[in-house]
C-alpha cells in the first residue's frame, strides 16, 4: 500500500508548522497561536481520516502485510565488506489496532493542549515551536516500526520537553526540567543498548535473498530470524534475554512511570504549565506502556510470560501506592499527578494478564486515562489561572461560584473514579476481568481493587474540599468558564461519556490486533521454551 504518505504527513506536519512559526515576524503572537491551532487541527482531521479508512479486521502486530498505511523506504544503506555486513535502516511507518487509538489520542490531546496554551504570553514563538517539535516526536513514536526510527523519535521529545517545563514552568522549574531530562535519558540508554543487542542477534532476509542485521521491529519479532550465536537469541544457551528484557522494561517503565521510577513525574507535573501537564499525562506516559506492548512483548514473548506476575505486581504497587500518596497531597496538581501514577497501574495490570480482554482494557485505559487526566489537569489549570493557588485546603464551595465549571469537574472526577457510563469504568472493568481470569495474578487483581476504593476516596474528598461546602469568601470574584475553556472541556466530556456508553467504538479498532498479539505471545513463548528445552 504505497499510496498517499498520510502517516509521514501526520508525523511531520508539526515540524512544518514549527518552521512556519520560525519565519513568522516578531510580535505576531496571535498568528503563531493560530498556526499551531491549524496544524494540530489538521492533524486531528488526518487522524480521523486514518480512522475512516482503517481496516478493523487487519491484525498488524508482527505481519507487515496486515499493517495499514505502510510507508517503507530504504533510509540508510551501507554496502558490506567481508568483515562488516550490510547496514540497512528503513524509514518504516505503519499502524495497526494498537497504535491507532494512540494516534487518535495524540492528535486529540495536542489540539486540546494548543487551545489550553492560548494564555501563554512569555516567548510565544518559542513555546509553540517546542510544542510542535514535541508533537512530531510523540506521533513518530506511535507510527514507527523500525527500532532505530522509534528511538530517534523517542529521544526527539526530550529537548523540547526540557524547554517547555524549564522555561514556562513554575517556581522549581529548573530542577523539575533537568530531573525529567536526566531520568528519561537514563532510561533511554538501556533501550539503546537492547536495540544494539537485538541488532546483532537477528538477521532479516531481504528481497534479493541476502541476510542483513536489522532494526526492523517486525523482523525482530520473528524468532526464526535469530542467529544461533546471537546474545539475545533464545537458541543461544548463554543468552542475555532476561537481562535485556529487564533493561528494556526499565527504559519504558521510567516513562510510564512505574514505581520506583516515578519520582520525576510529580515534580514535572507540578512545575509544568497546564498545557504541558496535559500533554505529559495525556500522551507521554502512554509511550512507556505502548513501547512495552509494541516492542518488549512480541520480541521477548518467553520472558514476558515468565515475568507477567512481576509486571502485575508492579501494576498493583503503582495502583495502591499512587492512590495512597495522592490521598496525602495538599497540592491539587500533585494529587492529580499521583492519581495518574495510580491509573497507569491499571494499564500495567491489564497488560500483565496476557489475555485479549485484559490488554484491550489496558489500551482502552491508556486512551481513557489520556482524556480523563488531560481534563483533570485542565481543571486544575482553570482554577489556578483564577486563584493563583493550588492548595486543596484554600478553597471550598467553588461549586456555588463556578457552577458550570463544577459540572465538568464532576464528570471528570467520576470518570476518574470509574463510575459506570463514563469511560474510565469500562477500561478498568476490562482490566480486572482480564486479570481475574488468569489464576496466577488473580490475587494481585483482588488486592488492586482496593485502588478503586482509594481512588473514590481521594477524588470525592477533593470534590468535597474544593467544590462543595461553604464558599470561601476570598473567592467570590472568580468567574465561571469563558468560551475558550468551553471549547476545551466540551470535546473531552463528549469523548468521556461516549466511550462510557459505547466503548466498542474504540475496542473494535484494537480487538483484532490485540487478539493476534495475545496468540502471538502464547505461540512464540511455547516454541521458544521448546527450543531452549532441547
Amino acid at each position: 500500500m504505497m499510496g498517499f504518505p498520510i502517516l509521514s504527513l501526520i508525523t511531520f506536519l508539526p515540524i512544518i508548522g514549527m518552521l512556519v512559526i520560525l519565519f513568522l515576524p516578531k510580535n505576531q503572537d496571535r498568528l503563531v497561536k493560530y498556526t499551531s491551532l491549524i496544524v494540530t487541527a489538521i492533524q486531528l482531521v488526518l487522524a480521523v481520516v486514518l480512522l475512516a479508512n482503517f481496516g478493523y479486521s487487519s491484525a498488524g502486530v508482527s505481519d507487515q502485510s496486515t499493517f495499514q498505511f505502510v510507508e517503507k523506504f530504504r533510509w540508510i544503506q551501507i554496502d558490506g565488506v567481508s568483515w562488516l555486513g550490510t547496514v540497512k535502516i528503513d524509514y518504516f511507518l505503519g499502524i495497526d489496532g494498537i497504535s491507532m487509538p494512540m494516534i487518535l489520542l495524540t492528535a486529540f490531546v495536542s489540539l486540546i493542549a494548543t487551545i489550553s496554551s492560548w494564555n501563554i504570553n512569555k516567548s510565544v514563538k518559542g513555546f509553540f515551536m517546542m510544542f510542535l517539535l514535541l508533537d512530531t516526536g510523540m506521533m513518530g513514536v506511535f507510527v514507527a516500526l523500525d527500532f532505530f526510527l522509534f528511538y530517534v523519535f523517542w529521544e526527539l521529545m526530550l529537548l523540547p520537553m526540557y524547554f517547555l517545563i524549564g522555561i514556562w514552568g513554575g517556581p522549581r522549574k529548573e530542577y523539575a526540567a533537568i530531573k525529567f531530562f536526566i531520568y528519561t535519558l537514563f532510561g533511554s540508554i538501556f533501550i539503546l543498548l537492547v536495540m544494539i543487542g537485538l541488532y546483532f542477534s537477528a538477521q532479516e532476509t531481504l528481497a534479493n535473498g541476502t541476510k542483513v542485521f536489522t532494526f526492523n521491529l517486525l523482523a525482530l519479532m520473528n524468532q526464526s530470524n535469530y542467529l544461533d550465536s546471537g546474545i539475545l537469541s533464545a537458541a543461544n544457551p548463554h543468552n542475555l534475554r532476561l537481562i535485556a528484557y529487564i533493561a528494556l522494561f526499565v527504559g519504558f517503565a521510567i516513562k510510564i512511570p512505574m514505581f520506583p521510577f516515578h519520582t520525576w513525574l510529580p515534580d514535572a507535573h507540578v512545575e509544568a504549565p497546564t498545557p504541558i501537564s496535559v500533554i505529559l499525562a495525556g500522551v507521554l506516559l502512554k509511550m512507556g506502556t505502548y513501547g512495552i506492548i509494541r516492542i518488549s512483548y512480541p520480541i521477548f514473548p518467553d520472558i514476558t510470560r515468565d515475568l507477567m506476575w512481576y509486571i502485575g505486581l508492579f501494576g498493583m504497587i503503582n495502583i495502591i501506592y499512587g492512590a495512597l500518596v495522592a490521598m496525602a497531597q495538599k497540592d491539587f496538581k500533585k494529587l492529580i499527578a499521583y492519581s495518574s501514577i495510580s491509573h497507569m497501574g491499571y494499564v500495567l495490570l491489564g497488560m500483565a494478564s496476557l489475555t485479549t480482554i485484559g490488554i484491550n482494557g489496558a489500551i482502552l485505559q491508556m486512551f481513557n486515562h489520556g482524556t480523563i487526566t488531560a481534563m483533570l489537569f485542565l481543571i486544575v489549570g482553570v482554577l489556578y489561572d483564577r486563584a493563583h493557588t493550588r492548595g486543596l485546603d484554600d478553597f471550598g464551595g467553588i461549586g456555588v461560584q463556578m457552577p458550570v465549571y463544577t459540572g465538568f469537574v464532576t464528570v471528570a472526577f467520576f470518570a476518574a473514579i470509574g463510575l459506570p457510563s463514563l469511560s474510565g469504568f469500562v477500561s478498568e472493568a476490562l482490566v480486572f476481568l482480564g486479570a481475574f481470569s488468569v489464576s496466577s495474578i488473580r490475587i494481585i487483581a483482588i488486592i488492586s481493587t482496593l485502588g478503586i476504593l482509594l481512588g473514590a476516596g481521594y477524588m470525592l474528598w477533593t470534590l468535597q474540599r474544593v467544590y462543595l461546602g461553604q464558599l470561601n469568601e476570598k473567592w467570590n470574584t472568580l468567574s465561571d468558564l469563558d468560551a475558550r475553556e468551553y471549547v476545551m472541556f466540551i470535546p473531552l466530556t463528549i469523548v468521556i461519556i461516549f466511550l462510557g456508553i459505547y466503548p466498542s467504538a474504540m475496542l473494535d479498532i484494537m480487538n483484532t490486533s490485540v487478539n493476534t498479539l495475545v496468540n502471538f505471545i502464547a505461540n512464540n513463548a511455547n516454541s521458544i521454551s521448546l527450543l531452549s528445552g532441547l
Partner: protein
Amino acid sequence: MDLTNLYTSLSYILPEIAVSAALILIVALDLIFNKDKRIIPYVALFGILLTIYFVIDQFRISGFAFPASDANNFYGMIAVDHFGAFFKIIILISSFFIVFFSLASEEIQKIQEKSGEYYALMFGMILGMLVMISASDLVLIYLSLELLSLSSYVLAGFTKLRDRNSEASLKYLIYGAVSSGLMLYGISILYGLTGSTNLYVINSVLQGPNINVFTLAFSLVLIFVGIGYKISAAPFHFWTPDVYEGAPIAITAFLSVASKAAGFALLIRFIRTTFVTLVDDTSGYWHLVNSFDWKTILVIISILTMTLGNFSALWQNNIKRMLAFSSIAHAGYMLLGLVVFSNQGLIAILVYFFFYMFMNLGAFLVVMLIANKSGSENVEDYNGLGYTSPFLAASLTIFLVALTGLPPTAGFIGKLYIFIALVDAQMIAVAVIALLNTVVSLYYYVRIIKHMYLSKAEANQITIVPDKFTFALVLALLIPVLVFGLYFTPIIDLAKNCITILGL
C-alpha cells in the same frame, strides 16, 4: 637511494611539501608586506586547500615514502595509506575552519601585525600533524611530535593579552617537555630491545621469541605517556583544562580537534603496525602479540578518561574549561573504539572523529563569538542569551546536544557506532559504563542551555547579532551536525574504505 625512488617518495609526500611551501611563503610574505598583513590568512587558506587537493589525490595510492627493505620486510619511514589520508583530511578541514575562526576572533585580530608568525606557527603545527599521522618510524614520530608541540606551546600563549595566556603556554611546555622526555626514553629502550626504530621491523621482532616482557612493558608505558599526553587521556590530561582555558579560543579549538586527531592517528598506527600479528578478514578482529596487554590498559585508561572528564566538567563555571573536560571525556569514548581491536572499532573512531570535529568546532566557535562581545567565558554571563541572541544560542544548543550524543544529531551516530563496536565485541559492561557517562555529561551540557534559556538575563545583557560572515561560518558547522545525524551513509562508506593501514 636511487633517483626514481626519491622521485616516487617525494610524490608521496606532496601534502607535506605543500604545507612546508605555504609555511615558507607565509614567512616571506610577512617580511614583504610589512604594514598590511591582511593577505596572509588568504594565503593560508589557499595553502590548506592545495594540501587538501593533494591529500585527496593520495586516495589513489598506497605505499611507503623513503622505503627500505630487508629479507622479511618492505617498510619505510612514511606510510601513505587511506587511514592516514582520512585523518589528514580531518586535520586540514579543521585547519581551514580555524583560519576562519582566527579571522572572526577579536583576540587574534588584535595582534594582526603578528599574523605572519601566527599562521607560520599554525602551519608548523599542521606539518607536524601530517607527518605524525603517516610516520612509521619512531624517530620520525618523535620529531613530528616535537614539531607539533613546539609550535603549539608558542601558539597557546601567543596573544599575551592576559596573564593566563602565558600561564597556559608555560604549563603546556613543562608538561610537554616531561612527557616527550619520557617518551624518548621509552623509544630508546624499545630500540635497545628490538634493534630498530621502524615499526614494521619492531613488529616482526616482537612476533619472534625471546622478548623481555618487563622491559617491553616499561618502554611501552613510557611511549604511551607521550601519546596519552597528546590525546589528553587520563592520567596525562592535567595540562588540558589550564591550557584550553588560557589559550586563545581559536587555538583551543584547534588543539581539541586537530591535535587530538593527530594523537589518535599516531596511537592507532603505532598499535596497529607494531603489535598486530593478524587481521581476521572475515570477522575484522585484530590479533595482537601476547607480550603486552594493550587491551586491559586501554580499557582502564578509557574508562578513567571519560569518567574523570565528565565528572570534572560538572563543576566548571568557565565554559572553555568545561569544554576542555568534555573533550577529555570524548577522548575516552574514542579510545573505546580502539580497545575492541577490530575494523569495526576503527570505523567507529573515524566516524566519531569526523562528527566530533564539526560539533566541537561549532561549540568553540559560538563560545568565541560570545566572548568577542562579552569578553567572558563564564557560564553566568550566558544568562538570557537565548532571548538576546537567539541564533547563536540555538546553534550552541544544537552543538551541545550533539556533544551529548542525542539523536537526531551527528553526535548520536558517532556514539552509536562506538557502542555497536563494543556490543559486537561482547564488551557490554564497558558499554554500560560509557552510556552512564553519557547521562552524566548531559548534566553539564544542559547546564549551559539552562543558563541561556532558563535563567534571568542581567540588565546589561549583551546582544550579539552575527554578521553575514560569522552566520555562514556557524551554519557551515551546524548543517553537517544535523544532516549527518539523519543521513550518515556517505561518512560510513568513506570510513569503511579508510581503515586500510599499511602493514599486516
